[in-house]
């Protein structure tokens, strides 16, 4: 592997993306086992490490979901290996049950959980903040404040985990994971691990006993866990990742962590306030280093806590300040809770400037409040208004067209429960607003299973759910089992586009190869569903006629769940990208345009970006560059004005 990221020499500097820096840090720590489930902004870490799996003798897998990913990584730890488990913020919720038990027992080989989170929900359906898990489940939490730290703290997380024999969580955010900065590399170690799971010792022998979470052991396990936390605090008090910059007696003490460190530094430089304001940047945010905080809190009355997500630091520091009130005195706190900073969304230097202006009465003008609105207005004049939409040739457009039509014809106010994937766009115009419920992974099927039981309360609406192929394995299977067992009257449509498309085609258990590229057996969704003894049909969403018939039949059917698997690879997948199935052409004489009889069904309703409306001729045109040649628009054109010729 030629990437500079993996060069086996030390002390050279390179521009690295935050996620690459974390991957490098893990390599420098000598990681052996890497697991994860894809999710923006976390996916690159596992992908990068998969690239050097052979070279660095790693075991890397994309697991079926985050809980299993953490369990495979924990197995690594219990086999005395160094393990890394990577996920996005929502994944931590999926893994939470295992996480609680792993943290309670502790680890053997180091186990680092990386959660890459998404303040501002740039690529998420939520602003989940996983930091409270560290407090709730009592394990250490680290938050790198720049790119060098991302690498260094990733490496150190392994050392810490090894020292205290418990899981350590490293939290990144989109603006760190996906931004880039200079990083000085360390050495890549030589390690010759010997994997063995020992169980010869007593249950409380952490390194050699059986790993048991048992009611009678809980008291002892938790006491041991608290000792580990105390050991972590001792290390945190001295940690070079907690830094202070500023005067000895600042007018205002800013306490921050993570990428907010960079925003705060920029704001203080713009405000020219480094001589008046102190910045305590914490890299270790749970448990808090109490002595370090006591020392800084006692020299300043005004405390401004800058963080994204929930007021996690703010609450914990306030508790500590109360506990140490005699030593540090009464403080005035500013942060997200009092409105000095907005309580939601990500932060930026301008919001920091506004906050500091509010506290110190400075008057540097940050970006104007109406800047965004004004910029949008100026841009609107020169840029086409583009809706969120599926790619040209995306199978989801055809699938939603079919589901929309079937539910309309069924005429029982039927609705579709959505799930997490590109197909979440089915809630918008490109999916004909078919999805009416969209929450977590797998929850569409779970809820459809519920709705399908409410006929006894007079519910007569048809209930459908969609999930992708990756989601099917991740979280839909138990929900489907539940619906089958409880005989719920619902229809599941699996939108099988042959990969975890939205996050970049990571493989899943239905794929022919794993993260490391080696051939693996493919699990067949159809066979799995058939084994549940439900009616299963498989169809091509591009075959509108046949698929429509199946959907209408399914809607007629009653009782048990029915499963329709719509198979068609993603238009951007390696199998389809750049390959047209059809050469599309226009017979302009047949085009009814915006006249009664059509009214531009293709560009007004179907709206594939590969179709363009020629406003001069008032006719449909194919955008040769964008068209993926799926041929579906020819099937929806009522007059045959769009034609499809099979490409050999």
């Amino acid at each position, binding site marked *: 592997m030629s990437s500079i990221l993996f060069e086996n020499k030390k002390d050279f500097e390179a521009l690295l993306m935050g996620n690459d820096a974390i991957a490098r840090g893990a390599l420098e720590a000598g990681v052996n086992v890497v697991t994860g489930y894809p999710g923006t902004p976390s996916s690159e870490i596992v992908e990068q490490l998969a690239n050097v799996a052979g070279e660095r003798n790693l075991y890397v897998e994309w697991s079926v979901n985050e809980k299993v990913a953490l369990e495979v990584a924990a197995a690594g730890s219990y086999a005395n290996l160094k393990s890394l488990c990577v996920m996005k913020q929502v994944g931590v919720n999926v893994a939470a049950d295992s996480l609680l038990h792993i943290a309670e027992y502790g680890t053997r080989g180091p186990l680092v959980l990386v959660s890459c989170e998404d303040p501002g929900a740039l690529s998420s359906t939520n602003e989940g903040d996983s930091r409270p898990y560290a407090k709730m489940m009592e394990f250490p939490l680290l938050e790198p404040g720049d790119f060098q730290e991302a690498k260094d703290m990733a490496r150190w997380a392994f050392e810490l985990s090894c020292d205290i024999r418990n899981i350590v969580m490293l939290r990144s955010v989109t603006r760190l994971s996906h931004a880039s900065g200079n990083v000085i590399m360390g050495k890549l170690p030589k390690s010759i691990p010997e994997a063995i799971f020992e169980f010869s010792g007593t249950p409380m022998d952490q390194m050699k006993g059986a790993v048991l979470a048992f009611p009678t052991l809980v008291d002892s396990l938790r006491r041991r866990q608290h000792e580990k936390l105390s050991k972590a605090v001792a290390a945190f008090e001295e940690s070079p990742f907690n830094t202070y910059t500023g005067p000895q007696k600042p007018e205002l003490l800013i306490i921050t962590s993570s990428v907010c460190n960079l925003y705060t530094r920029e704001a203080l430089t713009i405000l020219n306030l480094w001589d008046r304001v102190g910045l305590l940047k914490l890299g270790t945010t749970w448990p808090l280093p109490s002595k370090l905080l006591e020392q800084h809190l006692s020299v300043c009355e005004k405390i401004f806590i800058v963080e994204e997500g929930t007021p996690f630091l703010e609450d914990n520091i306030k508790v500590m300040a109360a506990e140490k009130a005699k030593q540090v005195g009464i403080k005035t706190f500013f942060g997200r809770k009092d409105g000095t900073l907005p309580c939601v969304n990500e932060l930026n230097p301008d919001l920091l400037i506004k906050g500091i202006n509010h506290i110190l009465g400075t008057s540097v003008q940050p970006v104007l409040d109406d800047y965004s609105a004004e910029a949008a207005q100026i841009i609107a004049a020169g840029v086409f208004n583009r809706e969120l939409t599926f790619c040209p040739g995306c199978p989801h457009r055809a699938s939603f067209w079919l589901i*929309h*039509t079937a539910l*309309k*014809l*069924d*005429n029982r106010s039927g609705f579709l429960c959505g799930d997490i994937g590109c197909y979440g766009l089915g809630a918008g115009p490109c999916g*004909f607003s078919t999805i009416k419920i969209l929450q977590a992974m797998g929850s569409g099927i779970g809820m459809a299973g519920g709705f399908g039981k409410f006929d006894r309360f007079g519910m007569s609406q048809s209930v459908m759910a969609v999930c992708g192929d990756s989601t099917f394995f991740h979280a839909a299977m138990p929900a489907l089992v539940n619906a089958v067992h409880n005989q719920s009257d619902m229809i599941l449509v699996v939108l099988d586009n042959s990969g975890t498309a939205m996050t970049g085609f990571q493989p899943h258990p239905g794929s022919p190869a794993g993260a490391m590229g080696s051939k693996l057996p493919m699990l067949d969704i159809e066979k799995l569903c058939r084994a549940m003894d439900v009616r299963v049909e498989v169809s091509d969403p591009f075959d509108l006629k046949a698929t429509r018939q199946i959907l*209408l039949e399914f809607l007629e059917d009653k009782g048990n769940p029915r499963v329709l698997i719509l198979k068609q690879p993603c238009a951007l997948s390696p199998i389809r990208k750049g390959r047209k199935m059809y050469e599309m052409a226009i017979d302009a004489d047949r085009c009814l345009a*915006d*006249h*009664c*009889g*059509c*009214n531009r*069904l293709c560009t*007004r*309703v179907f709206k594939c970006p590969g179709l363009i409306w020629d406003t001069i001729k008032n006719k449909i045109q194919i955008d040769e560059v964008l068209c993926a040649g799926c041929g579906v628009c020819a099937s*929806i054109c*009522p007059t045959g004005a769009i034609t499809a010729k099979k490409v050999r």
Partner: protein
Amino acid sequence: MDKDDKNQQGQQGINTKVLKQGLCTGCCACVNLCPSIEYYKDKTILVHDCNLEKGRCFTYCPRTPTDFEMLRCALFNPGDMVLEIGAFKGLYMTRAADENIRAGAQHGGTVTALIQLALDQGFIDEAILADQNDQFLPAAQSIVDKDEVSGKSGSKFAVSPTLSVFNRISKTDTGKIGVVATPCQALALAKMKVNPVPEDKMRMEKLRLVLGLFCGWALDWRKLQKLLKEKTGDRKIKGIDILPSKYACMEVYTMDGTIEIPIEEVNTCVRDNCRYCFDMTCEFADISVGAARSPEGWDVDRGWNQVIVRTDLGGQLLALAREKGVLEFKAVPDKNIENLKKASAGKKLTCLINLSEKTGNPDDFIYIDPEDPVVRHIKKLRG
């Protein structure tokens, strides 16, 4: 018409003024004109939104505002107009001469015999008539061979999507088309024929003959399915019928014998929109056919049809049927015409009452002009 009305003479108008008002007859005049409206299992479905301010769906719909008087003047001889039952050239009592046709018919088989004759004699090249599947879901079919007609006879209790087939067939290079139509369908065809949008002129010229059916009401197929399921369980149903009898009921023929459903229960399945229908005798047809009802009792004319001839074409067809011997005729009792007028006026009056109840305005009949001479006459009859 206010501004909003003017902007809503397309699919949006169909939605707000017809479908949401419960006025849709299921005639399918709006189906197969565009890809956004479909017929599915006895329902007219707006599959995709259309934002055109004017559309043929609205123009041809029999439940959008209609100038009845203009249609009557354009299609019929003004001298033939009878306020209660429309254009009238004569009332006849007929039945098919062919016993086999009669055996398959609900009443006298006159419709089947006339359509066969029309195809055979080149009156029309293609006939569109109702059919149904084994669950009594009506379908419509276009037929060119007269021998295929007889299998389609017998009453259908739900509206068939006849006009969707007319819309499809009339776009092809077919010849003269004859349509067996209910009153709502005949009205839609009249709107299409008298005032087609320019692109429909050619295809409307193909409409040669409208053979109308008397109609009291139609059943909602989805409701009927539910009722039949309740009454027969899993038994296989061979057929259903409502025979003229003293005690009206629906007879359901199953493998295990006949199950009778009282008419009051069947009435709960009647389409809501039928309450707002102004036409019993299919006034916009060339010739209209219904069951014969004799003043002497329900069973006197059992097995016979009553026929109203409305146009010269209708008259020619009936005369030809007499000449060729495909229909048998019997004398019409004097009172029949009066009874027919009374029954028809009764339906019209009920319609006006129901419409004004819906609008809350005694002079707002939604799709019917309060100044229409027939409306004025009916209101006068009521006193």
